[in-house]
């Protein structure tokens, strides 16, 4: 796990990229997460997470089309790598394992 260290927010961004597929560029990821998390996010937080994960090898990217709304600047479309999928899966398994362990704990806690 140590090498693949993935922050909580990074993980969310990574999942959003995986979900959005061809639409996965900065603002769209921001919109997606904002609607799901129900809170405002800044461009900076999304962008820095994307750049960090690209550097760690979770993401690849290439320029997409430019729109008028963007003042003629091109989008950068992100895609997840297979490595990212592996790590996400690992994370999910770890979580699932912990969730399974929980009811016992909760039950015991209730006794007190």
């Amino acid at each position, binding site marked *: 796990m140590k090498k693949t260290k993935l922050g909580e927010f990074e993980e969310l961004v990574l999942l959003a990229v995986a979900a959005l597929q061809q639409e996965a560029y900065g603002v769209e990821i921001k919109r997606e997460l904002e609607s799901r998390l129900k809170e405002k996010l800044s461009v900076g937080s999304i962008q820095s997470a994307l750049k*960090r994960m690209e550097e760690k090898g979770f993401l690849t990217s290439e320029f997409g089309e430019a729109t008028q709304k963007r003042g003629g600047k091109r989008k950068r479309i992100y895609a997840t790598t297979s490595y990212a999928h592996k790590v996400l899966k690992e994370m999910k398994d770890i979580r699932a394992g912990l969730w399974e362990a929980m009811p016992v704990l909760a039950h015991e806690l209730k006794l007190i």
Partner: protein
Amino acid sequence: MGSHAGAGTRTEVDMNEPKDIVPPRLPLRLLRFFIKEEYLEEIEGDMEEVFYDNLQQYSPSKTKRMYWAEMFKLLRLSLLRNTTFLQKINHYPMFKNYFKVSIRGLMKNPLTSSINLVGLSIAIGFSIFVYAFANWTYSTDQFHEHKNNVYLATFFANRDGKEQQFGGSPRPLGEMLRNDFTQIKKVCRVEDHHGIVKQEDQVFHERIRFTDPEFLDMFTFPLKWGLSSTLKDPNSIILSEDMALKYFGDENPIGQVMLLKFDNNVSKEFKVSGVAAAFPKSITINFNFLINYENLLSAETNYDLHDWSALVNATFIQVENPLDILAIQQRMDKYRSIQNKAVEEEWAISSFGFEPLATLHEQSEYIRDDISRSSKSNYSSVRYMMVIGTFMLALACFNFINIAIVSAARRLKEIGVRKSIGANRLAVIIQFLSENVVMTFFALLFGLVLAYTFFIPGFEFLWDFNMDFSFADKNLWIYLPIIVLFTAIASGAYPAFYISKFQAVGILKGSVRFGQKNMLTKMFLALQLILACVFITGAVMFTQNSRYMAERGWGYNQFQTMYATVPNAAAFEQLQTKMAEQPDVVGISGAVHHLGKNQVTRVLHFPDRDYEANQLRVDARYFETMGLTLKEGRGFKDFEGSDKQAVVVNEFFIKNAGWTNPIGQQFTMDTLQYEVVGVLADFHSYSFAREIQPTFFTVANKEDYRFLSLKVSSGTEQKVYSAMQAHWATLFPEVPFEGGYQEDVWGNYYGEIAIHGVVWRVIAILAITLASLGLYGLVKLNVTGRLKEFSIRKVLGAELKHIAVIIYRQYTVLFILALAVGAPISYTLIKLIFTTSYEYHMPVDFTGTTIAVTILIVVLLLTISTQIRKVLRANAVEGLKTE
């Protein structure tokens, strides 16, 4: 990773949508500045898209604000440009090298580094001391929380042809101000009164401070024990910590009873209700015993609170807002007319004024009878010390510069190497300056030690006070780095620029030669000599002056005389009878006032003008007892009721009045006519620091005698004095004895003059040390540099005198010039200091300057001789072998 594709085909921007609202330009520009270039297009686009999204929801201005916020949130390490200027700052290894080289340099030349270090340490230590002293002086009475809102009521009046400010105020003023102005929140009157405190078997004379309960609210004097509100109770007394210690020791004295005797008949018991915490060291307004103002009514017979013609020592007011004082000031006219109706015309005042507590101490020099004691001499000492401190630093810096320039020859190779492996001139300059900072930092450490263990305690010991210096002072830690940086740059800037200027090629080829003849070096040496000359002259003259002052006559006999204060005429009679029995007593006389102890200021009316003079009321034998010499006319006649309207004046009085024939001249005082019957030679009632005043004597009524003065035969002073004390103790066990030898009435005056001498001698020794260190270093480096030349000369048969002449010749002209400039400067400067700081001093002559010049010449000869001796003893072969 990220694809760095160049500009792709851009889709045509559709212009049909109105685009008059665009993202603000400034954040966009900032963004372009700090975001990594390869991310720029994407992020800029994202930002713009978000901007137009927001525009649909929010107002344009809000959208712009949000854009700004988004821009700041982009400041993240992973998005930032790897700015090259940031990399450039990282000079850590270089500075590490500089530090190493400086330490090695210091170790390699122990002589020059210790000269520099000692000089700088002395100068910095002295500067720290000056700081501590200035801090002590300027913080006087500055600890009061309400210092900007508390004001002292003062008045202006024309006295003796001069408009002067007075610190007292009419008695009813305080109460009237309190009632008439809503802006005035608090008022307190302060009156001091003498009292005798009896505690068990001991009796002491003490000053009691009467004041309103607000005193402790307006001034910040926290109590160690008890409550400040108890001052409202007229039976309570609040003590200072010192007094609590004196009367009750370490124990909490709350609830203890003290008996205060205000007068022969009036005494009252007080209950101790509070003890103040220790006062700050730098203080002029404080108290020993604090009791309610109302007690004045019982302490003084017929004390009238509503008497406009009588003054109270001080009235303080506190306002909410310092600006209110202007409004109050404008309405003070009303009180002026009340005041002027109540007093005689000669005491009329011209206006009232208010002096803020924050600046009261600084101003008190110009306010007469002010409650906050003036320390004019402290403020001027601070200024002198600052000048001297700056000179010391200058001396040390000159040494440093000189030695640095002369010894740079040794470091030329190093500079050449540095330059040829890529250091530019700036780098070399920075290297030299950082070496200096290291050096000054060490000097600072030594300087701190020197200040803390020598300068400050020494000065405190001389003047017997405590300047409360502590390293916890915040400003000190601002001051010290400033001193270090200033010194480092002042001393290092020139050598650094000078040395760094040479071309590497020239240096390495060996064609650059310098250090032998540098005008600047010589100029600095000359300046040092001039400064040293001034300091030595000062030291000699101040020492001479203290001797001169000790021998200067007072205008009367201060040696065989003594005095005692008596509470009333009956006591005078009793003591006089006892003392008259003593065989050693030559003369006894009684008086209301006494030379050096007290006198009153009166306004005299001449036909053409009014004139202020001091009055002493004495008996007929007083002149003879005290040894005052009669110049003209006669003294008072010795019988009951004689000479009621006769006065004897001093010569200064005659001079001021402009009389050629004084005997028989007349003037009016309190509607009575007085006639001059005699003239006394001038005398010093108070110390030489105070100018002789126009003074006159009148005959005192027997009932008013408060002083008994004695003249005794030579050598019996101590015997008679202790006999007087013994008689007193048996006659009046309830009243403490108060009296003394006449020669002691000036207090520590002679001690103070002697201290001036000590301080100047210390400064002069420091200056000589600095100058000779510099000279020594310079001569030594010079001679070492020319060792080859001298060796050749010796081989060719040069003798002692030839070499001596060659070495001396370099410095003779410089020395003659420096002394020719320095001697007159020191003479005029010290004369100026004398005339401004002493009213009377010895005639300033050339001895001081002559001694200074002689000392400097001797120092020069000695310094150079040591080097000549070295050259002579050195083996010429060794000198030629080097390199």
